[in-house]
């Protein structure tokens, strides 16, 4: 099924100069804010995080929590899965086949029905603004000396952009902002222009290093180190620009991941995670089906289902799943009630998420909703709990602290806790 519009404009949102500027500012910012969790406190296992963010809000009734006998159940049928007695919507036939490799939570209750606040809440585990999102937290906590690539890369389509870009690093500063890939295009100006001579670049770099060395002999090294670090990162990004080049993947892989944005971004996510990026977020647009939800969800599920299972199989075969946590999330679910346009609207009171990979107990289905799907009746979890759980699955402790301006600031909301039932 074709889903790609002809003539879609490809726009690259970030330039090498922009990256240099942001990482330089970030380095200074981080120095001011402190480096949060000390090296001794921070556990840094070689784990990676892949967020598959169903942006706009997928319908839980058409995916992980079907209600076939409810008047709000919709037209599609439930199907059996690899977990005996558990059904999912028939729009996810491939996912159903591997459901025993996932942990599903059917009792997410965030109460949030705003795209903007939902994006932030689900990624930061907080309602209060200013906290870093998961990708930025990972970029910081998992950072290692010698990291060349950005710790956090986030990918989305060109539109809609408003509610997907929610501030990212917060008080951690721009150093840990996600590098954004839009429409699959690598950061702009990542390639040396033909007109710039290699010898001239080499000479200029030698002069720069000598100048820095002489300058450092008589001054505090911090600002120079920050500059040097940022320069090295930009330089590394240029040298390793091939990680953004999907053409280097086989035609077979590109075909099986799917010739659409989500498929291409998932394949790129694999490249980036294998290359050393700590967290990749792939935003799958757009699930916000206020109008003709059942046509819409079907289109989205057609893309998601096959690509997701391809990714799961591929990650398993490559051994990536042992060290990668895969999270299927969104900013909200959709109303059980169906509006006059055949749409489902925003719903935060009872919806679903799923996890797979490292740190997760597979084959678990946690929580229940009532007959109509309007309320959680068992095992309610909120965004703070999910944040703690994701960190725990990554081998990190959300009860630890960031150090902001010399003061401790809890990494996760202290009022929330880990959802033990889904952890290995």
């Amino acid at each position, binding site marked *: *099924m*074709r*889903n790609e*519009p002809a003539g*879609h404009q490809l726009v690259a949102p970030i330039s090498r100069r922009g990256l240099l500027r942001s990482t330089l500012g970030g380095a200074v910012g981080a120095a001011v804010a402190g480096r949060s969790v000390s090296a001794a406190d921070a556990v840094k296992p070689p784990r990676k995080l892949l967020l598959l963010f169903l942006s*706009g809000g997928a319908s839980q009734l058409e995916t992980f929590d079907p209600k076939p006998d409810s*008047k709000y159940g*919709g*037209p*599609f*049928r439930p199907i059996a899965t690899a977990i005996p007695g558990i059904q999912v919507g*028939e729009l996810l036939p491939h996912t159903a086949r591997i459901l025993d490799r996932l942990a599903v939570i059917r009792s997410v209750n965030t109460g949030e029905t705003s795209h903007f606040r939902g994006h932030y809440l689900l990624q930061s585990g907080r309602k209060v603004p200013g906290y870093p999102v998961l990708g930025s937290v990972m970029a910081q906590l998992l950072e290692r000396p010698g990291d060349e690539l950005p710790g956090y890369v986030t990918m989305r*389509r*060109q*539109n*809609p952009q408003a509610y997907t870009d929610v501030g990212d690093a917060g008080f951690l500063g721009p150093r840990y902002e996600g590098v954004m890939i839009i429409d699959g295009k690598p950061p702009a100006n990542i390639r040396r222009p033909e007109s710039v001579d290699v010898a001239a670049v080499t000479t200029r770099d030698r002069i720069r290093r000598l100048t820095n060395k002489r300058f450092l002999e008589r001054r505090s090294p911090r600002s120079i180190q920050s500059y040097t670090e940022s320069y090295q990162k930009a330089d590394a990004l240029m040298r390793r620009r091939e990680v953004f080049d999907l053409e280097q993947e086989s035609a077979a892989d590109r075909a099986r991941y799917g010739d659409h*944005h989500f498929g291409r971004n998932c394949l790129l996510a694999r490249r980036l995670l294998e290359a050393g990026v700590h967290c990749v977020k792939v935003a799958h*647009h*757009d699930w*916000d*089906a206020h*109008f003709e939800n*059942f*046509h*819409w969800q*079907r*289109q989205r599920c057609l893309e998601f289902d096959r690509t997701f299972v391809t990714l799961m199989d591929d990650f398993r075969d490559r051994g990536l799943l042992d060290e990668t946590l895969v999270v299927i999330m969104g900013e909200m679910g959709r*109303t059980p*009630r*169906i*509006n*006059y*346009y055949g749409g489902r609207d925003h719903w935060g009171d009872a919806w679903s998420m799923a996890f797979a990979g490292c740190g997760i107990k597979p084959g678990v289905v946690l929580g229940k909703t009532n007959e109509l799907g309007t309320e959680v009746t068992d095992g309610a979890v909120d965004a703070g709990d999910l944040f703690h759980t994701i960190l725990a699955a990554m081998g990190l402790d959300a009860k630890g602290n960031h150090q902001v301006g010399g003061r401790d600031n809890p990494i996760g909301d202290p009022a929330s806790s880990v959802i033990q039932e889904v952890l290995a």
Partner: protein
Amino acid sequence: MVVAEPKLDPAATRRLREFPHETPLMSCVVDPTGRWCFAGGRSRRVYVTDLDSGVTRSLEDHESWVVTATRWSSPGLPVRSPAAELAPPPPPQPRDVTQPVAGPSRPVTGSTQESLVITGDLVGRLICWETLGEWPSVRWSIETGHGTLRTAAVSRDGKCVATGGGDGVLRLWSTADGTAIRELTGHTCPVFSTAFHPDGTHLLSGDRGDQKIRQWDYAAGKSVREFDAKDLSNYKGGTDINYGGVRDLAFTPDGAMLFCCGRDSYARPGLVLQFDWETGQQVRKQVSTFTNSIFHHLVFHPQGFYVTSGVGAQTGEIWFWTPEKDEKLASLKVSGPAYGMDLHPDGRHILVAQMGGPRTYGDQGMVGLYEMPLAK
């Protein structure tokens, strides 16, 4: 066969009665005899209403929402009109009782006449009903096996029914027994509308995504040409969904003109496009003033006008047009969003499948029976 003489006055159309149901409705068709109204919507039920008595039976033969319905009969079938007043009800029985249908009913002994209704649902169940018996009964019921069904139409000779849906493939099935005849591939998007040309040779199909109308020589299994209905497109790059689509297709009785309907933009009014059959060119675009609407159905009347039904912001309307003018002939607000519509075989009545209930979220339905009076 739609009959309508003498001259009607569509602008004076009025509501005769409504048949309420517990399901928001999305489709309806009157059987060729004019007695039974089949309606379906957001449930697995088909509501069959006896237009003489108002008695309704709900039949649970489908597996999902019943969103498409069509009919066919052999020539010369007598047609009855709905009575001005409902007949005294038969012995009491609860409304909407689910009752299994007995074995196939057959026409009067010795008759070769046929009267069929075909209904389709969103998981691919297609059912052929016979309507000449005491109550309609199932001739055959098949799982088409390729996902959602959105549209069905019966060929002029009654030998096959064409279906289209989510996978974009047209499929032809025998009306005799439901066996598959052939597939027609070419659409790259879901198919939402089908119609057979009066010449008996060609099938038309409209999609949602490219807004292509494809013309097929269906017996030969060949695509003949395309009509570009891009004015019915409303692609939103951000959502990667086309809000538009070719929602319905219809011909003038002589086949000289093709009509299609839908809308051209989110939050814009519904509209109709006209194509010249011979040249394939779009010759007129008729835009309604029905705000935030989409026209889901269109039927052409033998007296030279046509009717569209649509859904607006929690409202429904039916519009009357003539092909020669950009402006409407008349419009009528109905009780709720009007997803389904059919012209009664007598040519004087219109049935509209609607939704009703609380603001924003419909949880009930009704079939409205409307009458076009004679012109003064």
